[in-house]
């Protein structure tokens, strides 16, 4: 009997370690962002919808906003577009778009066809700003607070369910009550 104690003990330990690993590993191997709790990267980029105008992200200071990284080459971005439109319609937080490694005509066509949920769309043509945000695959969506601190990052196609369960609880009650 005694000789089973050690292997069983090791097995139990291994099972516990693996269970913790599985429980802590979020869906689809999402990688935690080191940006959470830190200042959101600032940038100045051309505005997609207005040729010649630039947008400075410092202008967002003092407001909550959603920072959504997308591209017309990204299939999941099409899937989340209706959710973005719905969020924009509710008006809880403005949605700022980062059009990542795209081309102006196709991106403009996309907005015309599917609707524009964005308050501003910044055009990151060479992908440098996306690197500053630690983006590794579109779509990615960040929630930023009025102090410019990144509160939350969501990887993958946004859904209304994810919005309700993961974003809204992080907003102050007054902001969330508007819906």
């Amino acid at each position, binding site marked *: 009997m005694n000789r089973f104690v050690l292997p069983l003990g090791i097995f139990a330990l291994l099972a516990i370690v693996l269970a913790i690993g599985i429980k802590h590993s979020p869906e689809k191997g999402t990688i935690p*962002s080191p*940006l959470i709790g830190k200042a959101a990267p600032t940038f100045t980029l051309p505005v997609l919808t207005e040729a010649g105008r630039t947008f400075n992200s410092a202008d967002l200071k003092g407001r909550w906003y959603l920072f959504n990284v997308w591209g017309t080459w990204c299939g999941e971005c099409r899937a989340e577009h209706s959710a973005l439109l719905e969020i924009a319609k509710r008006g809880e937080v403005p949605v700022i778009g980062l059009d990542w490694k795209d081309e102006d005509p196709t991106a403009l066509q996309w907005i015309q066809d599917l609707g524009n949920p964005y308050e501003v769309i910044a055009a990151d043509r060479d*992908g*440098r700003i*996306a690197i500053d945000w630690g983006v590794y*695959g579109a779509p990615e969506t960040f929630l930023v607070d009025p102090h410019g601190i990144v509160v939350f990052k969501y990887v993958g196609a946004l859904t209304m369910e994810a919005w309700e369960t993961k974003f809204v609880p992080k907003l102050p009650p007054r902001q969330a009550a508007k819906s």
Partner: protein
Amino acid sequence: MKRHYATIALLICILLATRTSQAVDTTQMPTPALQERYLGLTHELRCMQCQNEAIADSPVSLAADLRRQVAEMLLAGKSDDDVRDYMVARYGDFILFRPRVSSRTIWLWSAPGILLLIGAAIAVRVTRQRAALVDQDKEPVEEDIRSS
């Protein structure tokens, strides 16, 4: 003989195939020293999109952007650690194929040593137990042979 031709043809195909797959990155740094550092860094940074490839070997566009970043930083006179810091600040420890020793990764780094110690402890115990068994066995060796 014909079979040999087929084999040779196959080998050439494989050779060509490997050569094209290695031509993902054609960046040339101005000096051999910089080139060596560039290759070292691009091989130790993970492509976050494909996750099991280094940015040096990955054809996805994010990997190309990160290689460009590495090249620019090296040309600007940044150290290898500056480049690693830059990447970790944005993508986290996960981007390094050799994670740094920190409070979060200490278990990862010490695991091989701990496992080795556990293994050694078990080995010592088992050997001692067996040695003790042999000492207790007072029967002559012939008995063991006959009974088996």
